[in-house]
């Protein structure tokens, strides 16, 4: 029997597993050896033995879980081949959040790329996605329906700035995931010329500090002082999405409830969340970019991990590309989860 991708990567209870290298990729349970694509909590969990990830991802994990989040850690340099057991792995930027990477796994002439979460749209806070040619491309499908075509983020940020100009007496509270989305919104605001302080909920302070240390300029980002909330007229305040429905948001002056998320593309979703100013800003690939990326990798086979896999598998079929859903459990979508789920988890 010839060696195939399904020999290189199998599925276990913990997630994707490589028997030849004896490691898991983004395992959802503690394992002896884990390769981590990026720092979001559903992909990067604490309690593994050895962890191999980019330096930035390792530092994000340390901020989130403490320095002892695993027994030993190893930094993966982008673009370098690393030998793990009987396989060679290579990390390349995924464009999703700071430090995010895809992982190419190669042995006996077969190359599989686990893309983790990724996007192609420009993001001033992380390195852009690099295409890695492969035999099997493992992709997410969070926004895997053709209705998800994300607009230019500059227009979305302008919506926020226009609203601040029109309602200068109201606080604008933007719900955004604490790792990645929040910092991207800050960077986009700075690109648009907004130079006033951007106020932060306490939950995003440490990660934002880390972004700055990693060389991402975000300007002045003071933490919201509880007693001062009532004075933040016309301010832009970033908080985790769940905080908007929380008592925390009440004390701001006539707050505008805004959310920065790809889910805002669909009105029913935006309304369900109670968004008054939905900003369609996604850290995942939209439909055209999922399709484009699959084609550019030259992969003859596609495995779809999580999201709207049916449509993407169908599309691959039309293109003559073999495709199957993996039905991986345990991956949400980075605080862009279905309404309600994030709230329960928070």
């Amino acid at each position, binding site marked *: 029997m010839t060696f195939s991708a399904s020999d290189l990567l199998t599925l276990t209870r913990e997630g994707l597993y490589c028997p030849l290298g004896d490691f898991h990729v983004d395992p959802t349970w503690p394992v002896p050896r884990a390769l981590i694509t990026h720092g979001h909590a559903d992909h990067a969990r604490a309690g593994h033995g050895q962890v191999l990830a980019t330096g930035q991802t390792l530092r994000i994990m340390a901020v989130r879980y403490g320095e002892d989040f695993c027994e030993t850690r190893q930094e993966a340099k982008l673009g370098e081949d690393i030998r793990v057991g009987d396989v060679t792995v290579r990390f390349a930027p995924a464009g999703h959040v700071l430090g995010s990477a895809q992982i190419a796994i190669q042995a006996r002439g077969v190359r599989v790329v686990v893309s983790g979460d990724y996007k192609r749209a420009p993001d001033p806070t992380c390195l852009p996605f690099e295409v890695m040619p492969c035999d099997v491309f493992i992709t997410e499908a969070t926004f895997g329906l*053709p209705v998800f*075509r994300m607009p230019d983020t500059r227009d979305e940020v302008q919506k926020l700035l226009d609203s601040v100009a*029109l309602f200068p007496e109201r606080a604008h509270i933007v719900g955004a995931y604490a790792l990645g989305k929040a910092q991207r919104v800050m960077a986009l605001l700075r690109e648009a010329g907004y130079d006033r302080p951007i106020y932060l909920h306490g939950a995003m302070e440490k990660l934002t500090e880390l972004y700055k240390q990693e060389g991402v300029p975000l300007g002045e980002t003071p933490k919201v002082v509880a007693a001062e909330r009532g004075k933040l007229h016309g301010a832009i305040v970033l908080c985790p999405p769940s905080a908007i429905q929380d008592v925390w948001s009440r004390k701001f002056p*006539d707050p505008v409830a805004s959310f920065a998320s790809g889910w805002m593309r669909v009105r029913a979703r935006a309304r369900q969340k*109670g968004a008054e100013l939905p900003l369609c800003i996604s850290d995942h690939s939209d439909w055209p970019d999922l*399709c484009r990326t699959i084609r550019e990798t030259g992969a003859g086979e596609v495995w779809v991990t999580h999201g*709207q896999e049916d449509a993407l598998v169908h599309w691959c079929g*039309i293109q003559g590309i073999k495709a199957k859903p993996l039905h991986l459990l345990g991956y949400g979508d980075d605080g862009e989860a279905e309404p309600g789920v994030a*709230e329960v988890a928070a």
Partner: protein
Amino acid sequence: MNHFAQLLDRLAYEPRRNAKLRLLQDYFSRTPDPERGFALAAMTGNLTFREAKPAMIRGLVEARVDPVLFALSHNYVGDLAETTALIWPAPDVTASLDALTPGRGDAPPPLGHNNPPPHIPTLAEVVETLATVKKADLPARLAEWLDALDETGRWALLKLITGALRVGVSARLAKTAVGALGGHEADAVEEVWHGMVPPYLSLFAWVEGKAERPTTLNPAPFRPPMLSHPIDAETDFEKLDPAAFSGEWKWDGIRVQLSGGRDEVGSQVARVYSRTGEDITGAFPDLAQAITFTGTLDGELLILKESRVLSFNVLQQRLNRKAVTPKLLEEFPAHVRAYDLLTAEGADLRPLPFAERRARLETFVGALDHARIDLSPLVPFATWEDLAEARADPAAVGAGADADAIEGVMLKLRDSPYLPGRPKGPWWKWKREPHLVDAVMMYAQRGHGKRSSFYSDYTFGVWRPRQDGSLELVPVGKAYHGFTDAELAKLDRYVRNHTVKRFGPVREVAYGLNEGLVLEIAFEGVQRSTRHKSGLALRFPRVHRIRWDKPAAEADRIALLETILARGTSEIAPGATLEIPS
């Protein structure tokens, strides 16, 4: 079109009235004629054109998109217009969806004579084209527009042309925003509104101070009505002098205005307007033929059969009809009980005191002598106690069989002119006591706007015996007002601390024979309902008191509500929406 689309998009998500007003004002002040005029027409429901059918839109999109992908998407998004707006492929690329968009990181292809920029249609262009386009040409035009617009633009266009433009803006609010451009009240806009046509160039010129106030050429115009305040029996009466007021019945119908006059060639023009200035003449041809006069009558629309006023439930059957058939006219004859005269034979009577207008009204209605228009009688009283008795038992004080259609009494200051709007002081309404029921909170939902972090909408239920005799709670309504901010904070805390299940923005709270919060609900009546499991729904329910002290098991049983329904005292809630057949 794109600016209009952006406005609609913002309005659709904005819950606050004042914020909507600001968005509208901002749009009207920045948008040139005639674009803003057509936008105003679209929002006030004054555009007429050939509407596109959903089947046509489906046909257009299915010719461009893989049917499986479209079906999956439609299923996910739920709304045809929105799905189409989002999935519509960019033009000038190969037909299949994969090549939809070049990477946003890439430079866009240079525009030139081989690649002209798409022409983005203005709203004015869309409206003008739709008014004249041949049916067979519509799909091609629509496709061109969809190619040129972005997602939001396509959504707004599709909503507009399918006649489903609902963005939570009333005609009144749009007019308020227009008036505010020049510091005018909405009523001032209403005065000149009827008789004007889109794109309202003279209206905008006037509010912006560039032209004189437009003279209305409408011989039967709408006059903004005078509205009343609810009286607080505990505190207001002691400050008021009974001798200064006239009393009238408060009829449980709908407020209308009958306006008549002669046009330039001498033909009679007759109009029936709703309280908000909507022209509802088409729905009431039987009333229109009674408007043989030149003048404006203010009164209550009722169904009168065999000289007896029927209840609001009966009136509703006339209102919620699509077509006005001869059978409908015969079964539910419309009638107006007049209580004010605003103009007569070209004279504006509104500056006159009520007592004088009333005398003129009596003469006017007497001279008119039409079976469909009569006078709302005065309710004589000398003291507030007299009035209280009349309110408690209208039948005993001359209302006779009509008492069922009376929902209280009105007080009108005898020397007050007719003032549009809701001035405080001259007119008071004193409604019949509401019904009360003790119900148990079952679900709570987060509110909107300022209340978006509060669980402020409560579904409540009453006890119903099961077959085996045990009791279960069945929902009978939902209330979201009647409490103070401090009480809301306490209710919110209660909900958060007693949640047993969550469904998105809704929480189910703990309830049962041994636990649960009792809310004393005030309401105006009981209706049959297919929406609630109980088969009943309360009219205009609000939280009257929070019974922190009362055990849930002691809340009321459904039999109480069924008795009220059976008594036929289920007249209308003041908050009920008016649907006019078109």
